[in-house]
């Protein structure tokens, strides 16, 4: 199986779907002539032309809304935000328009579109370029929120997202675009809403998604050396949540650590914990522990940044706490 980078997997997904369906197009800042700020769309302009790989002015509110309208008129837009930080000026379009039109029109207008881009912190980008928007979008019914961790998952999930008749928030990571992984040459899809066990275990489950799946796998490796067997559950989709897989993992291990990039307050991690305690109260051996970014805007300096972000050490610490070794 070819070993390719995450950015190539994403590109393959978009290109294959654009070949398959003439209504699919990619729009965003620097996606065409610049080949994408992170080279995700490299070469796509040459294949599909400027009507389908479309550079925009710096106008997120405008082109996000344009995408919504195009979706209502029968297109299947892929709207790229250079990073999700910039989506906040387009928040209204995503929430008030994309997420709600299908419902407030009583099913008259579907919203087959994808918003995608780099999410969360990278390195030394400071406060305004390090936001993890997971919780901001997962809050709203009408949106699906996907966050892959491997090139294989990224390709299969993005293809499903493009074919989905609902607005999909697709969260990538600048730190992961260069990650390599095996991706088969034959076509495949990964369904939205299905979690994946990235490592099996019996002592606790570490619930995670996106780039921190790798952080958690490193932590699980270290825990194994201490005789602790951690199950790493990659949700892959944050909304809709794969309750079956989540609860089954809780039932198997009885102890839970939830790892969520972004701030703790009112975060997806809190929501997952609430659902576990509502439905799995009697399956728990103890309180659930969360690992999130520290509750401060991202500082620039390297030493401070490292204090704020999620590390394998913090995940290990949380795991030791839930298994009573601390």
């Amino acid at each position, binding site marked *: 199986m070819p070993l390719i980078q995450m950015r190539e997997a994403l590109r393959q997904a978009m290109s294959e779907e654009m070949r398959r369906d003439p209504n699919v197009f990619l729009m965003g800042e620097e996606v065409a002539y610049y080949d994408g700020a992170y080279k995700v769309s490299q070469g796509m302009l040459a294949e599909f032309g400027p009507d389908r790989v479309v550079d925009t002015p710096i106008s997120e509110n405008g082109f996000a809304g344009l995408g919504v309208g195009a979706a209502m008129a029968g297109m299947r837009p892929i709207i790229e935000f250079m990073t999700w930080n910039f989506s906040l000026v387009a928040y209204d379009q995503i929430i008030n328009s994309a997420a709600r039109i299908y419902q407030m029109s009583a099913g008259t207008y579907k919203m087959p579109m994808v918003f995608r881009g780099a999410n969360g912190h990278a390195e030394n980008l400071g406060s305004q370029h390090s936001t993890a928007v997971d919780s901001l979008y997962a809050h709203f019914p009408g949106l699906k929120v996907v966050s892959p961790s491997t090139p294989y998952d990224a390709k299969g999930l993005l293809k499903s997202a493009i074919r989905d008749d609902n607005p999909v928030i697709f969260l990538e990571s600048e730190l992961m675009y260069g990650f390599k992984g095996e991706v088969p040459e034959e076509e495949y899809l990964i369904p939205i809403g299905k979690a994946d066990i990235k490592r099996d275990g019996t002592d606790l489950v570490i619930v995670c998604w996106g780039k921190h799946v790798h952080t958690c796998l490193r932590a699980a490796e270290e825990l194994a050396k201490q005789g602790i067997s951690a199950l790493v559950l990659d949700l892959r989709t944050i909304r809709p949540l794969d309750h*079956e897989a989540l609860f089954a993992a809780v039932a198997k291990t009885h102890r839970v650590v939830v790892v969520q990039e972004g701030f703790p307050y009112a975060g997806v991690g809190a929501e997952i914990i609430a659902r576990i305690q*509502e*439905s*799995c109260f*009697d*399956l728990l051996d103890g309180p659930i522990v969360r690992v999130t970014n520290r509750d401060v805007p991202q500082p620039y300096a390297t030493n401070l940044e490292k204090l704020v972000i999620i590390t394998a050490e913090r995940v290990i610490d949380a795991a030791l706490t839930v298994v009573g070794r601390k």
Partner: protein
Amino acid sequence: MPSFFLMPQATPTMTSGVLGRWVVAEGAAVSPQTVLAQVETDKATMDVEIFDKTVILKLLAKEGDEVPASFPIAIVGDAGEDISGLLADYAKMKAGADAGAAPSAAASPAAPVAAAPVPVAAAPVVVPPVAATPAVAPVVAGPAPAPSVPSAPAGEVAPVQWMGKKLDPSVMEIRGRYTVAGPRIVASPLAKAMATDQGVDLRKVKGSGPGGRIVAEDVEKVAKAPAAPSSSRPVDSSVRVTQMRKTIARRLTEVHQQVPVFYLTVSLDAAGLVALKDQAGARGSKISYNDLVLKAVARALRDVPECNAAWQGDSILRRATVDIGVAVALPEGLITPVVRDADRKGVAEIAAEVRALAAKAKEGKLLPEEYTGGSFTVSNLGMFGIESFTAILNPPEAGILAVGGVEQVPVVEAGKLTVGWRMKATMTCDHRVIDGALGARFLQAFRAYIESPALLVL
């Protein structure tokens, strides 16, 4: 057919309006959007409009009246129509309203005017006369009449059910328990804690909570149930321990298991101590044997500083100051507040400080710096009639002195049997720091101060 024109619900929140001014006169022909009157609502002065083509036959409300929303304020219809029936209805409604005893429209079992069925093809704002219409609402501000929302088919308020529904991944909202087969005892954390406290065997408790979960109430019932007649013997119970108790248990176990100790016991002539205490008491100074013992220990430590020390693995810590811990019994355990620089304080000063610290300890108000960092501890059970005992070290201190009671005993003095005062004390020594001879040297010094307490005040 003539009909009532009602006070409009001009804003979503208004319950009544004050009719400020009639803009039209009786007999006026009106068309849609004609302003009939101005009304003060909760929000502003609003125009009352009519949305039908008709004639104003009678103005019912007077300027300045406060009228509930949906209560008649005028009669409209074709010119020259007979309105006597409506006037009679209105008189009854108004009388009932003015009496103020009418139930609120919302609660009235009979159909109130506002909610009366309205033939829609006619003019809906205009309500046809209802025979024997009951009074519905006071003319002064009162409960809001029921909003005249069209009647709903049965089942309108049926809640959306999710309990027991299969988990649908497309719907985020879920309720219900996720269960797996297995031998786990399903009990709430509170119930588990209570069962431990009260010695209840959860395996024998039937859960009454959702899914058979054992909840606190179930444990309580079992705990309170009279003992079965076959077993009349009292049942053991477990008592949950406090954090303090847990800490004491852990530390004592550690020190008892890890520190090599030996014990040295001395019997001391306490006659001087007794005399000194009596003299002090006679002068109104409240000092105890223990205060004197503390002072003696402190002075002895100054004389033999090798005992004022602690084991540190690769080194021995020599204390620069003499800080004596005093064991104070508490209901949930014991604590050792520390008298700092006891060797340099007077007995009265020590006595006052010990009393203050003990009081604070009993209120649970000791600060950490007040019960840590001592160099040697004194534990005195003499007041409980204990003659002698051994104590466990208070780590990392190298020594603790267990002091018994001051008692009159037969003694041999100069070959003759006589009555004397004796006090026994047993020193526990950390052998890594204190050898036998060193311990003996310390007790010698201690003996000197106890048997000649005048030295204490020198």
